[in-house]
Each structure stands twice: as C-alpha cells, then as structure tokens.
C-alpha cells in the first residue's frame, strides 16, 4: 500500500529533467529512488522519440521500457563524459534502429498523434479537421523518410536537441547530421506542398 501511494504520488508529469550529474551519482550509489526519478523525468521524452521513429505505440512502449532497463543494468559503465540525456537518446536511437531492422516488422501506423488529437476534439470542427489532416500528413511524411533521416528530424525538430547532441547520440560527424537534417526537411517540404498557398 505504501508502495502504491509512493508511486502514485511520484507518477506526476514532469517536463523538466532533473540535474543530470546529481541523478547519475544517485544512480551509481544505488539510491532506491534514483531510478524512479530517472524514469519519471525522461519517460515521456524517450517514449515520444521511440513513437515518432517507430510509428507504433506498442513497439514504442517496449523500446522505451528496454531503454530504462538497460540504463538500470549498465549505469556503472556510464563514464559521464556526455550528458545522461544524450546517453539515453543514444540508447533509444540504437534500439529503435534495431527494431526497425528486425525481420517481420509490419507496416507502421502513421498519424496516430493526429488521430488522437481529432478524437480529443477541438473547438472548431473545421479547423480540427484541417489541422488534423495536416498533422496526419506530416506524420505520414515523417514515417516515409529514410530511417537515418527520420531519426535526425525527430531529435532536432520534434525534441529540440542541438546538433552536437544528435551527433554524440548517433555517433555521427556534425556535418553528416547537418546534411541529413537538411535533406529530410526538404523532402518533407516536398511532401507537404499541397497544404501551402
């Protein structure tokens, strides 16, 4: 009962990640609530990246869970040269790529977020339909990007990572990140032409 209360109290939305160095130290010391703090701080971001890359909520949840479990198992090997968040994104990206390459993976479900938003309702049904259609088209366009370009767009434009963070997470040269991002944006522009005046 005490545990449930603790969890229910802890599972509150937290948009702001805790201070990485202190969290890393707490995780290394094996403090009981450190892992809980980590999950609560990064759960939405990790899940969101996985969802945008994989386009499927079930896959995204599995990958996000595996990301945290890997962190839990291997926190002792984290050297602390990069930020904890960068390490998390690196693990997330790698697991997403592995999932995308796994055999038997079915067609991606695209535009789930847009459909969710339509279902939740907007004040103006017309605006809702138009916004939903555009967002669905955007997600479809993102899903149709090459895997390597998609992950860069997701990290940069959907989650606001700096070029350097993306380069570190994906272990790519900075110029490669720049060129992939530019090509991805140009490709998306072409796919969304019909929505612009």
């Amino acid at each position, binding site marked *: 009962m005490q545990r449930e209360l603790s969890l229910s109290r802890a*599972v509150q939305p937290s948009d702001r990640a805790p201070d990485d160095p202190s969290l890393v130290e707490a995780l290394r010391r094996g403090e009981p609530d450190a892992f809980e703090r980590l999950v609560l701080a990064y759960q939405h971001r990790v899940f*969101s990246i996985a*969802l945008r890359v994989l386009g499927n909520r079930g896959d995204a949840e599995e990958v996000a869970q595996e990301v945290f479990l890997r962190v839990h198992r291997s926190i002792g090997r984290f050297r602390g040269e990069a930020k904890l968040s960068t390490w998390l994104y690196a693990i997330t990206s790698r697991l997403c790529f592995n999932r995308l390459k796994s055999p038997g993976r079915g067609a991606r479900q695209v535009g789930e977020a847009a459909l969710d938003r339509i279902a939740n309702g907007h004040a103006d049904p017309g605006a809702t339909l138009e916004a939903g259609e555009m967002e669905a088209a955007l997600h479809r366009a993102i899903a149709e990007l090459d895997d390597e370009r998609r992950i860069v767009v997701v990290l940069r434009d*959907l*989650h606001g990572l700096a070029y350097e963070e993306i380069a570190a997470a994906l272990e790519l040269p900075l110029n490669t990140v720049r060129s992939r991002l530019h090509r991805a*944006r140009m490709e*998306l*522009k072409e796919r969304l032409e019909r929505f*612009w005046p």
Partner: protein
Amino acid sequence: MTCHKARDLFSARADDLLPAEQRVALDGHLQGCADCSRAWDRFSRTVSLLHSVTEARAPSGFAARVIGAARPEPWHRRLFRGVFLPLRVKLPLEAAAVVLVSTLVIFLYRESPEIERAIEAPRSGVVAPAAEAPATSAEVEQAQGYGQTAAAPAPAPAAPPAEERRRTLEGARGGARLEKKQEAAPAPAEPPAVGGRLDAAREVRAPRDQDVQAPRAKEIPKSVPSMPEPKAAARAQGPFHLMGLLRPKSPATLDAQLDDLVKQVGGILVRDADRVGPGSIVEVVVPRDAYPRLETGLRQIGDFTVETRAKAFPDQVRIGLRIAQ
C-alpha cells in the same frame, strides 16, 4: 549567390545558425528570386510545423511498469528461471541428462560384479562377505572347524563354473592363510561335514553341531557316472567332501606324480596353476570306491594328513588338497 547555393542554406537559416555575412547574402537573393523566395516560405513553414508537434506522452502506468520490471526478482523465481527456462531448450537437455545418467548407472551395475553383489546380497538374505571385516574368533573357529573361511566371498548366482572353481580354490587358500594366523585355535576332533566351497558367511555362521553336509549333498547330481566326465566334473558344484594337507617328499616331481595317481584311480585333477607345487591347492574328483587307492597313493607321494572329512562320501568325492613344503 546561385539558387542551388541559396537553398542549401535554408536549414542553417531556419535554425538561426547562419553567419551574418551569409544571412545578408541569402536574404538579398531571396528578395530578387521569386522561386527561391516561395521555396523558402514553404521550407520555413514546414520547419515551423515540425516544431509545433507536441511531445507524445507515455501511456498511463508506464513508469510503474518500468520500475517494477527493474526491481530484482526473488531468489526462488530466479532459480526457477535459471533451471527450467526457456523450456524448449532446458527440458530436452534435462531429459537427455536423465537418460544418460540412467544408462551409465545400468552399465556400471552390469560391468561391476561387486556392485551387483552388494545390491543382491541384502535382497537374497545372504550376509556380505566377511573378508571386508575382521572375523571374530568364534567365526574363525567355526570356519576352521568346517574347513571354511570367513574370507571367502559369496559367489554370484550367475558366475560361470570356471569362476566358481577359482573362487573355491582362492577360498581354500584364504582358509589356509587364516589357519596359520589362528594356530592357537583348537580344531574340532571330528567335524560333522566338510565345507570346501567356503563361499558364504551364512554357511560359516552355521552352528557347529549342524550337519551342513545333508543339504549340500543334494547339490551333487545322483546320476553321476562312475567315470566322471571332465566337463561334468568341472561343473560340479558344492563343498569339498575332504580337505587334506600333502607334504611331498619330492616337490619337483609332485605334479607328474599327482597326475599319474589321479589317472590311475580314474579321477580328474584340477590345478590352480600350470604346475602344482608348494602353496598350491588342487581339486581332485574321484569315484567313492577309488578314494582308498587315492589316499594310499598320496601317502606314497608324501606326508598326507586328512584335515576335515565328511561323514559319508557321495558317488563322486571332491577333495581339496593343500600342498605344503
């Protein structure tokens, strides 16, 4: 600035990462090029749209599930998983291991008579051979009294005749050794029966006044011909009806003399070695009627002493003969 070069700078311009000099140059090109201006407008709208996408939220209960999954499992679950899971791999392996061990046990059981006897002895009620443990003085006395020894192992039920004879002779030899060690123990004046097989401790422990010859006599077939066939004699089983000690006058010619004598009386001679000499124990089987001639001949060969003797001889008399110096 060319249109191609201008469009390559769109991403850097959208992220505000363009140096001031390049930014001025790009803006100047966009003012003068309608196509690039329209392309930039659509590009910047696309990037703005991407930035407007809200972060997806993890499903309800996700954090609790992750935290629960990270908690260490109880030891008994880890043990169960370590032993049995994954079932498709470990069950066949464990079954194969059971079959392998069972086969090995059966093989060892069959190949090791000692194990077989150790298992069979309690089942059949036969006491384990006394050779494993020191015999008590009473047992030794009884063993001497009946011409038996506690050191003789119980024969396996399915032992071949040759093995049986070897054990018999070994047992007699063991009895001789025991006798030397227990010289102080008095020998009975007239034992009721002679036990040449020296096989089972049960027999060793039989009461002194019990006539063990009677049941043993049944073990010898009554329809044995007067001239024993070597094979039949070799197969003969049961106790010695007489145990004797022979001190030959001429050990060098003993083997030939014994051979001639046994042939003359119509018996057979079973040696425990290629050549009979001091320390040997031989088995002689003769018809009952021929025994007096055999005894006479033995006394001519050397100093012959009867140690134990059955009350009555059957048609075929089995004689154990210890050769001394």
